[in-house]
């Protein structure tokens, strides 16, 4: 897997866990309950969810690397401000890139791109991990947490869009109508509730339920 084996292999077991753990055991959304707000709001269409997941992953990973690289020179008293500036700068860059290259997605994500700044996952990982670890490990940790967040987003978006609009919007493929017209002719109707934020809560709750019943050790006392 890794080509440069010097001291500690790049993808040692410990490092691999940094990526895989946030997908399940310590998932930022379902276990740490961070970043819920955007998970509720940008999951109406699959393409929005995918781009949002990508944007958050990029920001967590890059933010982690930058802060980790600077961890020995950041003055302790203003470290939160420094973190905020780094995250805000990264988010603005992401926002500008979206506006230039995927204009439609940037339009439908609207304020939520800017709100990545306040996504608790990012500040949480900077404080808890990047300040005390080396850049490479921090990058993996950021990547893992971003992907963990993205995984939940994609699952939620899948159910919301299929049940709410009977379709899936995949970037590059356009809108795929999954529910056949024959079903509509028989009286089937799209469920409008699934287009609204409350339905995400229901789906996230079911996700947590399934996840915890498959991993009994996640259940608290």
């Amino acid at each position, binding site marked *: 897997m890794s080509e440069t084996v010097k001291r500690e292999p790049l993808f040692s077991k410990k490092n691999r866990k940094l990526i895989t753990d946030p997908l399940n055991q310590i998932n930022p959304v379902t276990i740490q309950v961070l970043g819920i707000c955007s998970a509720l709001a940008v999951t109406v269409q699959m393409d929005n969810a995918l781009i949002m997941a990508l944007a958050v992953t990029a920001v967590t990973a890059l933010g982690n690397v930058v802060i980790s690289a600077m961890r020995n020179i950041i003055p302790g008293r*203003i470290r939160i401000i420094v973190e905020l500036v780094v995250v805000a700068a990264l988010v603005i*860059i992401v926002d500008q890139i979206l506006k*230039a290259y995927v*204009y439609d997605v940037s339009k439908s994500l609207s304020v939520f791109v800017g709100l990545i700044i306040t996504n608790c996952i990012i500040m949480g990982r900077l404080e808890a991990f990047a300040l005390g670890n080396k850049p490479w490990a921090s990058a993996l940790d950021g990547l893992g947490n971003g992907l963990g967040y993205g995984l939940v987003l994609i699952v939620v978006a899948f159910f919301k869009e299929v049940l709410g609009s009977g379709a899936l919007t995949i970037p590059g493929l356009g809108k795929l109508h999954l529910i056949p017209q024959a079903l509509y002719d028989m009286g089937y109707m799209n469920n*409008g509730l699934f287009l*609204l934020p409350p339905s995400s809560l229901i789906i996230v709750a079911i996700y947590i339920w399934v996840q915890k019943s498959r991993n009994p050790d996640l259940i608290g006392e």
Partner: protein
Amino acid sequence: MAINRESNVYTIIFATVMVVVVGGLLAFVSMSLKPIQQANIDNEKMQNILQSIGIEETDGITRDEAGKVFDNYITRRLTINYKGEILSDKSIKEPIDKKDKLDAFNIDLRKEYSKFVKPIMNKTKGDDAKLAAELEKSENIHFPIFVCEHNGEKFYIVSASGKGLWDDIWGYLCIQADGETVHGSVFDHKGETPGLGSKITEKWFQDDFKGKTIADGTEFTSIHVLKPGAKLDTHQVDGISGATFTGKGVNEMLNRNLIVYYNFFKNNPEF
């Protein structure tokens, strides 16, 4: 390293350097991506205008395509004020100058509404006669008209902007050469509820405006969005269920804007 990381001097220097570096970086990114972003915005506007004509050729045109063929369809750009006086009249030979604020293409519909119309509406509090008088007095409100010539037929694309349930809504309506009959429409919004109010961007809603008229004999009659399923005459279109307030917003903005164009076409039959 002998630097004291907790000293005030170090903290201040660090903060200053960081702000300068980050500021420079952001300015650079913004400057280098600006042309692409502006092209997106312009192309989208062209796409909206072309789609509203309601002819087969521009139906479902993509954004990039719209930017390329815009000049093939739009032959003249006019800007009028509430009284119907022409403020700017550009032919196809004069390319769009970004600095010319009166050029019909440079009129920002949402800004027109939020900056100039909304304060007047707040002041007049629903009194229609007062509102019309105040709007007439205001010199800041502009109404763009795009003239399209296609296969020997003339079309006029007019615009409207207002407020839906949550935020701004706006749209383009294409009027036939008689100055009354609608030939096509496009609506867009900033933040209407997904799946409900946001459906004003859908084709079935916009297609419903085709063939409707804004005149009743010699009187102006706006087009109204009704409750879904109601019986429709030539001034009414089918509404969206669950989006009553967005529909009301569409009614208000059409009523307020279309009368200006109606009077203009009536008083200037040479168009």
